[in-house]
């Protein structure tokens, strides 16, 4: 019975994804801008030093980025639901409230995976997905990154009341998570402080799994960690973040904003 409800939540997420054309389109265009503008720019500089192709190095990073944005936006639909009132439909349904978090998490994972697959098709057409593909690692990388991003999104969403602070979220969550990972540069050569931060960033390990799966560059541009380390961190973080989000969401009723409003009116 709960399975039906979980399925319905996921289905709604996917309907919304394909109905919001702009969201889907920007998810496709954003990685290409990175690849063809920033990637090509750095490639031109690095070519003189005899380094391997930076554009190929960027492929796992932009796949990760697609999923980071895709999963975060989907996870934040939880906040949209609180604001728009749809959450009311969810909280009166006959299952424990943590199922809402789990269903939304799975919806965000699926939304992220769909977007990653679409970007991969684009990359394949453009000739960026060739050579050293390790299918098992690639699948693990896509799922792992999607789960890390989605559970991070749920964690943020559980504490966020309105979409007003979405810009704040962009600046203080999405961008730091993206920049302070191995997406744009190998971690190994980062200054120590940044390196520590990148190593504490769970998203780094998702992207590293993608590097195991789809990196054309070895050596300097190869993965930073062992697959087992990546998997361990990814699974561990997903479970921990989801648990915390579930507990927080179950405790904090979806009505808190409304109740505050009522209480304030009564005080006046």
């Amino acid at each position: 019975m709960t399975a039906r409800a979980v399925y319905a939540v996921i289905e709604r997420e996917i309907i919304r994804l394909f109905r919001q054309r702009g969201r889907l389109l920007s998810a496709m265009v954003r990685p290409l801008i990175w690849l063809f503008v920033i990637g090509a720019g750095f490639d031109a500089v690095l070519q003189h030093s005899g380094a391997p192709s930076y554009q190929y190095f960027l492929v796992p990073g932009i796949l990760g980025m697609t999923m980071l944005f895709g999963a975060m936006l989907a996870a934040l639909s939880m906040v949209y639901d609180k604001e728009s009132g749809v959450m009311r439909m969810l909280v009166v349904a006959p299952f424990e409230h943590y199922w809402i978090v789990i269903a939304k998490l799975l919806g965000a994972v699926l939304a992220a995976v769909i977007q990653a697959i679409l970007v991969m098709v684009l990359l394949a057409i453009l000739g960026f997905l060739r050579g050293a593909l390790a299918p098992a690692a690639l699948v693990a990388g896509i799922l792992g990154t999607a789960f890390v991003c989605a559970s991070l999104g749920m964690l943020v969403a559980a504490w966020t009341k309105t979409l007003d602070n979405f810009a704040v979220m962009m600046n203080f969550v999405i961008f730091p998570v993206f920049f302070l990972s191995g997406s744009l540069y190998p971690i190994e050569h980062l200054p120590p402080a940044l390196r520590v931060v990148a190593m504490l960033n769970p998203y780094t390990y998702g992207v590293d799994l993608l590097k195991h799966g789809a990196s054309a560059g070895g050596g300097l541009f190869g993965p930073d960690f062992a697959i087992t380390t990546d998997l361990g961190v990814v699974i561990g973080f997903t479970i921990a973040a989801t648990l915390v989000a579930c507990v927080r969401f179950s405790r904090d009723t979806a009505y808190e904003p409304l109740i505050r409003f009522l209480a304030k009116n009564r005080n006046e």
Partner: protein
Amino acid sequence: MMRDAVALSAATAISAQGLTKRFGDVRAVERLDLEIPAGEFFGLLGPNGSGKSTTVHMLATLIRPTAGGAQVAGCDVLTRGSEVRRAIGVVFQESALDRSLTAWENLRFAGALHGLSARETRVRADELLALTGLTEKRNTPLAALSGGMRRALDIARGVIHRPRVLFLDEPSTGLDLMNRRRIWRFIDGLRRETGMTVFLTTHYLEEAAGCDRVAFIKAGAIVRRGVPPQLVAALGDYIVEIEAPDTQALAQRFAGRLGPCIVDHDCAFFRVRGEPAEFAKLQAELAPQVATLQVRRPNLNDVFLWVNEPEFRS
């Protein structure tokens, strides 16, 4: 003792004992007791901010009471939340629908959340769309529906799983008279057909005239309960309503002659027993001084107005 409680629960749809909710030092609901038999149409009436919604949210297991307890459909709201939610439907003061989906998609989503199969959902959604006159709007995005249609759809959403107890929290706020009537016809039909218990909150007291029983709530506490016709009859046979520039003086002048008086803003209300024989005389005497003079039957609004008057309470 335990057995009694179980036997009671079969016939009792909603009961509450000392139900209390405080937000910080704001007392939203204070020691509320309820006993609502299955099948009853119950109205919780009071002004905005009097604690009606908070009461509904506690009974619907969406917020935890600070003290006291309640059982809905035989299950404790504190310990068996999911089971309570399985038995109830809730129509909130604000819409619970998704604006990015169509009318049908909203009902399908609601049906699935309550564990209905795809077939059951389709059959019931079609029924409900027909009952609410929305069959032709089945595939219209919610954003393109009028406020009245959205409200009707939201109520359909709340009953798609055929709840045993339906909570209607200010269901007709913002609706015009025609839409309000249409929605009430729909709810009355559902009640007759399914025998479900309805817990209504409203500040439109005319709407509550059809309730089997009502309770008036003020600042979180129930101040009076009863059966609407009896409450109204207890007031008197007529209400004389006078609006005048100096209402206070007028009230004092006529209090002895007409009956007990209450002054609300610029209006004086007199409760009159028997036929208002003096009306013609009164009209002649007052016509030059007053803005309006009205003699009418009392209604629930008057009950609420008099609710704090000691002579009426006794």
